[in-house]
């Protein structure tokens, strides 16, 4: 046990820390800019002073032990999040656009003004959605150790007394609830969703989307208010000096106005560079265990704890299944010889059986299918071009198309495609994959495969396509 501990909080305050004698850590000299005056009350001063004078019993007994907490460490973690989180946010908002809000098929449906300007999601490059979601989910997972470290680094602020000295500080604390609640809510719902655990009971899409906007509000506010302090704190010591400071030479940062630096910390058991290595190592560990679900190939197996790190075997149809035929309630009987593809949009409906489809010009393309959950898999698909089917239906340049499935229930039993998604020469109604007929779980007798389309819109068990004017 540490020498100065002597029971929870019993140590006298103001006792010099054991290692303050060490001063090789030169960057530690007090920074006048951070030593701002405290203790001024806003209006009504009587109220804030009274609050200040009545701390809850026991609060003063809390002693923060870590000698590493301080504005510099918090700022390094904050700067990392400042770079990474906007990428996670933007890819998330882009994914909403990729789902096609124009056709009312982005979830949640009504988001008011809370979305990026709507545009037609491109089909090139074909790995666009794969990249977008791989980054969104991958970075979102990798950043978790950094978020936790950041929360750890500022926890003394939660117990600071008084919690506010002015209306300004009360309001700022409310925005911090949005920030902290927002990021953890997004992490928790996202992490549960990619593991198919819907214990939360509400709609994932709705909660994750609106939760994101609450987070964005808190995040932008926090950046505006804290950016100068972050820059100042980062300048208080150089990363190089930290990387050259061993455990024995590690001393606390100089006291700060926010009370992040513990006045009576324990002796360090970890250097500051060691702490950064721990956080970075945690992020690296998560990266190694995540990347395989997006990259696929031999790396897939490294995603040991994720649903999409599993192998299905080596046969042509042995790749990631999303929603089995049984779960979708597909009766194998209706996919047999009686199955017909209905093409609508021309003057008359066109009915094609599978043999007739096989007789149409067929094309083979290698395309990734990428899920909103961040995983993807690239396969070689063979089928009929959607553009050829549009021509066969009698509407060669449709504005949009509704692709419907044999699946009777479920939010994704149909998808609406834009003009560019129909006419891309790689957009197919696939009949085969990797040289073999599609398996029932992969959408036999026919499924959609469109470049850069969110995976779940690549409708399986297609029963009809309606090509529309607009």
């Amino acid at each position, binding site marked *: 046990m*540490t*020498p100065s501990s002597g029971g929870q909080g019993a140590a006298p305050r103001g006792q010099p820390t054991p290692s303050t004698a060490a001063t090789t850590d030169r960057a530690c000299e007090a920074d006048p800019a951070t030593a701002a005056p405290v203790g*001024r009350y806003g209006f009504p001063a009587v109220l804030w002073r009274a609050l200040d004078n009545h701390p809850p019993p026991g609060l003063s007994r809390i002693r923060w032990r870590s000698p590493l907490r301080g504005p510099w460490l918090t700022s390094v973690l904050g700067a990392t999040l400042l770079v990474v989180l906007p990428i996670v946010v933007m890819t998330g908002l882009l994914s909403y656009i990729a789902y096609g809000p124009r056709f009312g098929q982005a979830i949640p449906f*009504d*988001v*008011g003004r*809370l979305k990026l300007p709507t545009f037609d999601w491109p089909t090139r490059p074909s790995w666009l959605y794969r990249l977008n979601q791989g980054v969104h989910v991958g970075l979102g997972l990798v950043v*978790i150790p950094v978020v936790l470290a950041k*929360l*750890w680094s500022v926890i003394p602020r939660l117990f600071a007394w008084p919690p506010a*000295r*002015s*209306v*300004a*500080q009360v*309001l700022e604390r*409310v*925005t911090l609830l*949005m920030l*902290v*609640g927002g990021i*953890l*809510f997004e992490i*928790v719902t996202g992490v*549960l969703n990619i*593991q*198919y*655990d819907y*214990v939360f009971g*509400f709609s994932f899409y*709705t909660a994750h989307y*609106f*939760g994101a*906007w*609450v987070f*964005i*509000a*808190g995040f*932008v*506010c926090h950046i*505006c*208010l804290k950016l100068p302090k972050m820059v100042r704190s980062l300048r208080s010591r150089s990363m*190089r000096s930290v990387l*050259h400071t061993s455990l*024995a*030479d590690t001393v606390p940062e100089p006291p700060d106005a926010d009370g992040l630096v513990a006045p009576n910390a324990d*002796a360090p058991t970890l250097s500051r560079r060691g702490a950064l290595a721990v956080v970075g*190592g*945690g992020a690296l*560990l998560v990266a190694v*265990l995540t990347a395989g679900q997006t990259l696929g190939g031999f790396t897939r197996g490294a995603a040991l*704890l994720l*649903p999409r790190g*599993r192998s299905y075997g080596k046969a042509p149809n042995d790749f990631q*299944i*999303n*929603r*089995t035929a*049984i*779960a979708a309630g597909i009766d194998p009987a209706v996919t047999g010889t009686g199955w017909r593809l209905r093409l609508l949009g021309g003057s008359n409906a066109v009915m094609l059986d599978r043999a007739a489809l096989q007789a149409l010009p067929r094309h083979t393309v290698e395309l990734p299918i990428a899920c909103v959950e961040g995983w993807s898999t690239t396969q070689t698909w063979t089928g009929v071009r959607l553009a050829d089917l549009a021509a066969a239906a009698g509407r060669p340049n449709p504005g949009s198309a509704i692709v419907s499935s044999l699946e009777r229930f479920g939010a994704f039993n149909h998808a609406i495609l834009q003009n560019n998604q129909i006419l891309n020469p790689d957009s197919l109604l696939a009949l085969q994959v990797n040289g073999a007929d599609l398996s029932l779980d992969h959408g036999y007798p026919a499924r959609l495969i469109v470049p850069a389309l969110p995976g779940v819109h690549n409708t399986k068990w297609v029963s009809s396509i309606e090509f529309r004017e607009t």
Partner: protein
Amino acid sequence: MRALAQLAARLYGERLFHLIVVLAALALGAYTISVLGVRNLFNPNVWWQSIAVWFAVAVIGHDLVLFPIYALADRLLPKTRSIPKDPDQRPSGRIPLTNYLRMPTLAAGLLLVMFLPGIIEQGAPTYQAATGLTQAPYLSRWLLLTAIFYLASALCYAVRTLLRQHDSTKTAQTSTPAQPSDDSQPRLP
């Protein structure tokens, strides 16, 4: 006019910029809830399956739940006394065990928290409907990873201890004053 602005800032407690930023954030938050609909924040049938409840728990999830747990666990770790700067005064040969327990525990704990659903097989029906597979492998995979973390840590500890012993015997043999360890060399700022 300037005096008035200063007075207002004093009453509020911060600059005008602060007020604008904070109000904008609160307004965006309020607008978000209004678009979602306050009604949709709550689940009238199962109270704990409400967005509002999960958000509230998220607010305190780290600070009042996770932090006390890992802080307590850290207090239980064996810790050495502060390491004297002078290598002569250091207890010879013994390397503190603290971080060699802390690191594998952190890694295993992080993975447990992140991948708990698979490990405890929660949400098995939806998992199977989505993938056609079961969650059976995850517990043993996590246990295996945990074993690897502790084993690797033990190995590092053993290697470092051996190196330290090797160093100290060499120092004793040459009977020169204790070699300065890398910790006491002058550092660049």
